[in-house]
């Protein structure tokens, strides 16, 4: 701009080419602007068309928009709720919250179980034991080629063919397996338990700090101070001490047969069990593939170098290969976790009351289709975003630090 006047190429008195706006179709910038205006205009037009149609339709059917319906009394019976709920008193809003909690209950437990099972099977696929390797490969190949919805329906049918309450299996005292689900003894919660839990968390934090100090000492001196006695005392001793100091309360609520159902104890409903089993078995095949490719991505030289140091195969896997493989495993594992969370919405097909199922009932009762679906989408978008953020943070933490 201003530099052009001192440019020697223009010293001969020739005027520099005009920098003003020339309306030429050959100008890529102009073309880009025109195209963007056209495309955004088309999309906006389409959205406006849909919105105006919707508004007209809603007006015609006399459906009021807005989320006011969330404040009305729900009257939906919900079998499983983590927070107190009474359909004749509580509102739709509370029902939705219960649905979200149920979805999270499936997703969190599912993610933990999937990680454990998937890692085990992924490693087993690379085992030197031929039978183990082939069986786990067959497991992965078979289960991942069958739609997860079909698997859920299958497990749900199986759970329903379990014996009735009268003939419930009783493998352990207090544990009953029947077509009404899995009944287990439940600890009667006492304030002492809460404090023991708090003590455990404090102990865990202290152990973590101790461990870091030991690592620093090892880096400085080459000798790692012994940590485990202190860790044991902090993790087990401290909570036990707190619990004992508060009178060591321990009562179990044992389930007992009462007529056609059970009384007392904790319940895992058949729907929840079927959903969890189906989702975990299906998703763990994907997790196993992530783990397997991750381990294979570590160069063979690492295995050989570690073996040359005289480490055992298990130690090599744990201390040398897996930490390096983790960097390859985490990104695809994130999408696997997102997958199990989204697939938990299939609960609606087997009658587990997750957020989709509850909102679906609500929108059938109230006719608030748009708000209902927007609610479902918002919930899943938030959960997905949360998982992505956490996994990105973890990924950044374990990323290879280079120069």
């Amino acid at each position: 701009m201003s530099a052009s006047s001192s440019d020697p190429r223009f010293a001969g008195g020739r005027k520099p080419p005009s920098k003003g706006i020339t309306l030429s179709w050959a100008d890529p910038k102009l073309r880009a602007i025109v195209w963007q205006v056209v495309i955004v205009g088309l999309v906006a037009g389409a959205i406006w068309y849909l919105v105006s149609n919707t508004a007209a339709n809603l007006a015609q059917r006399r459906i009021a928009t807005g989320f006011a319906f969330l404040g009305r009394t729900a009257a939906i019976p919900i079998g499983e709720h983590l927070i107190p709920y009474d359909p004749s008193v509580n509102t739709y809003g509370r029902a939705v919250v219960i649905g979200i909690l149920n979805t999270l209950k499936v997703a969190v437990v599912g993610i933990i179980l999937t990680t454990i099972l998937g890692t085990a099977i992924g490693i087993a696929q690379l085992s030197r034991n031929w039978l183990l390797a082939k069986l786990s490969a067959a497991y992965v190949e078979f289960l991942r080629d069958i739609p997860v919805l079909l698997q859920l329906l299958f497990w749900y049918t199986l759970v329903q063919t379990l014996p009735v309450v009268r003939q419930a299996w009783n493998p352990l005292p207090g544990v009953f397996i029947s077509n009404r689900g899995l009944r287990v003894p439940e600890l009667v919660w006492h304030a002492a338990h809460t404090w023991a839990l708090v003590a455990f968390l404090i102990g865990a934090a202290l152990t973590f700090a101790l461990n870091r100090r030991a690592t620093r000492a090892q880096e400085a001196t080459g000798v790692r101070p012994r940590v485990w006695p202190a860790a044991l005392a902090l993790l087990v001793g401290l909570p036990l001490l707190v619990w004992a100091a508060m009178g060591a309360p321990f009562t179990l609520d044992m389930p007992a047969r009462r007529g056609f159902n059970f009384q007392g104890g904790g319940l895992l409903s058949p729907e929840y069990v079927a959903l969890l089993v189906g989702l975990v078995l299906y998703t763990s095949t994907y997790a196993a593939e992530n783990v397997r490719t991750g381990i294979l991505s570590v160069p063979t030289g690492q295995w050989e170098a570690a073996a040359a140091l005289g480490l055992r195969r298990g130690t090599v896997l744990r201390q040398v290969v897996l930490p390096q493989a983790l960097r390859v495993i985490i990104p695809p594992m994130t999408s696997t976790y997102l997958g199990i969370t989204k697939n938990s919405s299939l609960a609606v097909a087997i009658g587990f009351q997750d957020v989709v199922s509850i909102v679906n009932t609500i929108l059938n009762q109230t006719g608030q289709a748009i708000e209902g679906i927007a609610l479902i989408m918002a919930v899943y978008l938030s959960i997905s975003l949360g998982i992505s953020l956490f996994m990105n943070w973890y990924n950044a933490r374990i990323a290879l630090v280079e120069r």
Partner: protein
Amino acid sequence: MSAIAPGHHVAQPSREPPPSLIAGPLAWMRTNLFNSWLSTAVTLALGYLVLRMGTSFIQWAFIHAVWTVPMGANGTLDPAACRAAQGVGACWAVIWDKYRFILFGRYPYDQQWRAAIVVVLFIGLFVVSGMRRFWRKELVLIWIGTLTVIGVLMWGGVLGLTYVGQDIWGGLPITLILSTFGLAVAFPLAVLVALGRRSTTMPAVRMLCVLYIELIRGVPLISLLFMASVMFPLFMPEGLNPDKLLRAQVAIILFAGAYLAEVVRAGLQGLPKGQYEAADAIGLGYWRKMGLVILPQALRLVIPPLVNTFIGFFKDTSLVLIIGIFDLLTSGKVAVAEPIWQAYSTEVYIVLALIYFAFCFSMSRYSRGLEREFGKSVRR
């Protein structure tokens, strides 16, 4: 006569036994099954489990199974034999009775040969598309031609075929239609969206593409299907109400488009920058640069993950069960809703699983093969 030079020994036949512990099946078992005490324990435990479960499955599925049941007095099948075998043997009679319903749903019984031809045509289309000698422009024509024939066969109404409305289509053809038409439309959409997301000169378009991709990928397919079944009628002007199948198809296309776009984008990113610069340097415009230089290479890079995504969508079409569309899974589920067969849904689900498995497994084998083939040129 000593022709043999001193110091040269004639090889004596060895007295040692043949080295059965270095080569041969015994040695193989030793290294692969009984390598250490842990490995031995695992082998024994797994072997016991496999034998135990295998034999009980074979007994259930074959030995004690009931294959057919006789016709009862009132003209319906009499499942007494199945009831007697309940718990010990499978009741395959339900498949024998219901297989046409499971495969073709409520499609008119005497016209089901048309649906059967459609299934064969679809499989033929997949096989042809998988062969590399057909990877050329004419393939698009083959697709258009085959899909037209499929439409004619399913709907009828011309060439002397009776008209069959799409509300009574069902079974395997629906699954194949939803996945194939879905991909045929979603793929070009995905390429456009991926290009839009990579655009450097049009930030507004890039924003739109990012919004679309992330929004769709963040929510479950079910919520889109619900949207198609409950919200779509509200979107449309009064009197225009597209049919349920079409609405589900639109939802699947939108869903597949977002996932495929990310796969395509990976391919675009995987291509060296030099390719873009070279295409610019010889003065190609945007579309010719993409169409002639970038996309042919980028898509080739991502064929294996593309096939894996296809497998995912093939499985995901089963979700239309939840909004009541008659695909393969739904017709299987409806088949066992009949009172006499209610107790035998396991058998039907196993057969459905085998059908899905056959399709997905062959696609995944094919994708593995391609990966190996493409890997060859890279590794050299």
